[in-house]
């Protein structure tokens, strides 16, 4: 059984993650708390959009997270395919639902923001459309990962899919922008102003960091959980054949 352990090297990870987990949690709570306070109470009201501008403090960091998580998945997938590192594979698996959730959050907040701004719940705006496609990529990954009876097969197939998808993301982004300029809607108020005021930038960045720390924290918990589950499966298997 010692090979299995060498592949995942869980003890060292367990020790390290237990040590940094409380710090990550504290940092997350601090940035999230202060970020939400600034975003909801102390930041200025936009002269055009009024209070709806506050949606941005969730929407924009969530959209950043959507891309960040996919990039993280691609890096982890490459590591797991090339060096066959067990932890990297668990990281891909653990990141996917978090990324999908943030992507969904970005879509929902985008739609909520669209209603007062554009008068409809959904506009085929280039950014929103790209995020929608990204959401499909997450769904595809999770569906493929889950579609095999042999978990190792699902892990490898879906890792290749993530890499193929990652190569495609810039092409999709470019093509959607291209398509959108071709079919430009009559009046679109751009979501980003020419320059952003410091009072708005600060809560935005705080929320972005809060989301990153949240991601880190969930990853630590989920990887530990998965390692535990692997150990339980191995023990059960041993018990069953003895």
């Amino acid at each position, binding site marked *: 059984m010692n090979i299995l352990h060498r592949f995942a090297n869980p003890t060292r990870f367990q020790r390290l993650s237990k040590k940094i987990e409380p710090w990550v949690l504290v940092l997350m709570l601090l940035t999230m708390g202060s970020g939400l306070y600034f975003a909801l109470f102390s930041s200025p009201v936009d002269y055009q959009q009024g209070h709806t501008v506050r949606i941005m403090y969730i929407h924009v960091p969530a959209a950043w997270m959507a891309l960040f998580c996919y990039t993280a998945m691609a890096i982890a997938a490459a590591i797991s395919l090339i060096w066959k590192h067990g932890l990297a594979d668990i990281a891909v698996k653990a990141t996917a639902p978090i990324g999908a959730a943030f992507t969904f959050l970005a879509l929902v907040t985008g739609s909520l923001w669209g209603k007062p701004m554009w008068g409809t719940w959904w506009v085929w705006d280039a950014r929103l459309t790209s995020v929608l496609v990204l959401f499909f990529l997450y769904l595809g990954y999770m569906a493929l990962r889950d579609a095999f009876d042999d978990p190792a097969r699902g892990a490898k197939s879906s890792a290749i899919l993530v890499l193929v998808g990652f190569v495609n993301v810039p092409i999709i982004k470019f093509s959607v922008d291209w398509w959108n300029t071709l079919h430009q809607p009559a009046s679109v108020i751009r979501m980003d102003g020419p320059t952003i005021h410091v009072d708005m930038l600060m809560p935005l960045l705080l929320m972005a960091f809060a989301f990153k720390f949240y991601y880190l924290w969930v990853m630590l918990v989920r990887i530990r959980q998965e390692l535990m589950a*692997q150990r339980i499966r191995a023990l059960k298997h041993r018990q069953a054949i003895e």
Partner: protein
Amino acid sequence: MASFTGENLSCIRGERLVLEGINFALEGRGAMILTGPNGAGKSTLLRLMAGLMRPSQGRLLWNDTNVSDDAAEHNCRISYIGHADAVKPAFSVSENVGFWAEMNGSKGHTPEQAMTSLGIAHLADLSARYLSAGQRRRVNLCRMLTSGADLWLLDEPTTALDSETSASLGELIAAHRHKGGMVVISTHTDLGISDAVSLPLEVTR
């Protein structure tokens, strides 16, 4: 003379350790029979030898070079008979055999010779969809004969074969070894290979 050795081979499949610390050495004209209960990893070891899977630990060596260093080269040396027969129902028997002979570079028997030695020459023009399981297995064995490979890897080759064909398979193996070839077989049938090395495998815990 060629040699094929495995050093401390281990294999993990789906979080489960299937093989652990397997060692073997095979010289030209050698034969090895894999024995052991179901689930001991006989098929897995054959797939490792074929290069379909990589060992999680340990090395497979051909003449002291790692086989994974040049997988394409290794593919030319081996012929693998698995559980499925790879027979296309849309092709005739001779088309099936002929395709694989060409694919593998036509270094061994001609398709006609192969079909004659396995007793299916009279079926050459028959569409493969009408073949019985045993006849399909014989088509698959023809593929092995035409490949001209040094190392035959046979996973339960006698399933669905009648005793007569099993006997002629035994003779073909003897002839192959006489020419310097090697054979690794997992089988429960006695193929009359009296001087074969036996590699007992156990279910790992």
